């Protein structure tokens, strides 16, 4: 393309050249005829009026024709008068005709009016009748309507009655339901009350039992506490603490008792490491026999049949 552009000018020139050559050739072939001068007529010819016989003939003819025309005009005039007459006659005929027609028309109109009046009268009559009929019809209708209304009213009333009955039934049913519900509620309440009462009774019994148990427990607790204190005091009174050797020593003695409180067995289960201290403790327990145990055998069995002393000088 660049090539084309580069050589475009040369290309155009070349093409143009070729085209010129071709045209020249072509022209050369079409111009073999020699060029001739053509002389065209000018207006000088028209100005050079020439009177010739044709004009005289034409004049004569024209005069002839003028004569002929005169006659013909007369004729024409004649014919025109005729025609005018005829036309007048026609017009008269037409007038008559029209009058006749108008009369007929008027007659016709009158008849028409008469007819129309009659018609109107009939119409009025008819309307009157119609109105009357209408009135009657209206009345009948009214009546019918009233009847219908009454009927409807009756139906309505019936319906209302039915409705009322239904309502009543409903109310009654509702009332019954209410009553039933109330009864049920009462029944439930009674059941609940009965249950509550039963429960209260049970609770009361249980409370009594618990109170009794608590009282017993308290009593036993107190008995235990007082027995413990009494035993402690008795053993304390019987324990001859070894002189100058007790500091920091302690030993545990397990005792087995009879229900009378008599010490059956006193065993050192944890020694102080000092025979004399241990023996003093053991002796204290034996010497304190019988120990003041609770009189309650059950309590004794549970707590005082076997227990321990810890000898631990302050």
């Amino acid at each position, binding site marked *: 393309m660049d090539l084309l552009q580069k050589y475009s000018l040369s290309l155009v020139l070349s093409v143009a050249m070729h085209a010129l050559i071709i045209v020249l050739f072509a022209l050369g072939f079409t111009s073999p005829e020699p060029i001739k001068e053509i002389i065209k007529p000018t207006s000088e010819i028209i100005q050079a009026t020439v009177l010739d016989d044709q004009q005289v003939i034409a004049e004569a003819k024209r005069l002839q024709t003028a004569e002929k025309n005169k006659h013909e005009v007369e004729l024409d005039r004649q014919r025109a008068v005729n025609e005018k007459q005829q036309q007048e006659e026609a017009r008269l005929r037409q007038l008559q005709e029209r009058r006749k027609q108008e009369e007929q028309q008027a007659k016709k109109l009158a008849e028409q009016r008469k007819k129309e009046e009659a018609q109107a009268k009939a119409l009025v009559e008819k309307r009157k009748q119609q109105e009357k009929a209408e009135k009657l019809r209206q009345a009948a209708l009214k009546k019918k309507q009233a009847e219908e209304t009454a009927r409807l009213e009756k139906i309505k009333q019936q319906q209302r009655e039915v409705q009322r009955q239904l309502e009543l039934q409903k109310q009654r049913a509702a009332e019954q339901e209410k009553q039933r519900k109330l009864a049920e509620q009462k029944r439930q309440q009674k059941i609940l009350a009965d249950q509550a009462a039963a429960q209260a009774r049970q609770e009361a019994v249980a409370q009594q039992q*618990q109170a009794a148990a*608590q009282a017993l427990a308290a009593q036993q607790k107190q008995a*235990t506490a007082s027995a413990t204190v009494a035993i402690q005091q008795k053993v304390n009174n019987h324990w001859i603490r070894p002189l100058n050797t007790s500091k920091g020593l302690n030993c545990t003695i397990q005792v087995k008792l009879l229900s009378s409180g008599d010490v059956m067995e006193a065993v050192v289960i944890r020694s102080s490491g000092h025979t004399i201290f241990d023996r003093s403790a053991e*002796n*204290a327990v*034996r010497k304190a026999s019988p120990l003041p145990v609770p009189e309650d055998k059950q309590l004794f069995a549970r707590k005082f049949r076997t227990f321990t002393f*810890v000898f*631990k000088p302050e």
Partner: protein
Amino acid sequence: MTRLLFSLILFSGLVWSYPGKAEISIEITKGVEIAIPLAVVPFGWEQPHQLTVDVADVIQADLSRSGFFKVLPERDMLTQPSATEQVRFRNWQALGQDYLVIGKVTPAMNKYQVQFQLFDVYKGEQLMGYRMDVTQSELRSAAHHISDMVLEKLTGKKGVFNSRIAYVTTHKQRTGKRRYQLKVADADGFQPKTIAESSEPIMSPGWSPDGKQLVYVSFERRRAAIYLQTLASGKREKLTGYKGINGAPAFSPDGKKLALTLSRDGSPDIYVLDLRTRKLQRITRNYAIDTEPSWSPDGNHIIFTSDRGGKPQIYSIPSTGGRATRLTFSGDYNAGAHYSKDGSQVVMVHANRGDYRIALMDVKTGAINVLTGGRLDESPSFAPNDTMILFAARQGGRSVLSAVSVDGSMQQHLVFDQGEIREPAWAPAL
């Protein structure tokens, strides 16, 4: 829900009222510090002639005097068994006795066989039983020996009933002159023997650590002199006879030295005499009176009485000499101090507002515990087992021997000789 709660309450109620089988444990913290009730039944003797020594009587007196026992009087005994099979423990329990001593004496050749048993009355079992063959003259000693064994078994303390004491007695003679006697007796005062006597004062007897010798001060030549006397042979030796005061001799724990008071260099001061070399070392050097030296158990210190502070107080000084430090600060008067055998306490005469009493000072804390309630208690001396303190007290206008337990709970007068008894010194246990 309510029911569940309800049963829970009931259940917990049950649980509460039956709190398992948790064993009761009772704490005994007080007890009583009283003498242990004990019965010593008269020993069986099935011979027509009477024994010269009532063994049970000696034991009863020993144990009673110790302060540890409350001895049942013979008249209160329901039975007097002398063999195991005769013992009914219930009887002794009924009498409130914790322990029971029975025994018998039977002739064996030229000797006697002494047998005894110690029972735990409440446990109903024998704790101890021995048999020994002794001569008639040893019967009393055998009884003391039994007392020692019983005491040791029941209190853990070493018995000192077989030990001896030295003391000085004063008798007023018909001529009106006083007679001074240095005596050694059994710890119960029996079998006294006169070691020395003089019409001039005899003072400050002190035992050698082996118990074989005594030192004392005698004015027999109208001048104070310190003598050393061997008990077995009666041989004696004058140790010092310096001008002025020769006083308060005290054996060192190893027995090789003697601490004493001399005023030969002016005011009375403490000296240490080497018994082998006879060399004298002056320990204190003070214008005030320094006297009554006593050794610490380890022999490192000497405590003594000095009025260098204005009033007599106890001081301590290294036994080789040095700086003296004051030990006592309370009371108007503190004097005559002696260490206990374990060195934890010092016994002394403590005076406040004119009442002279026996007091113990805790060496660690310096706290003073007054043990006696007399007006003129003096010359305290520890028993060899540190359980008692022997001292001289005034009773009825005369001086008597008294003993007090170290806790002050037990005090009794030991009246076993005529005349006045002074300056008791308990011999070391052997």
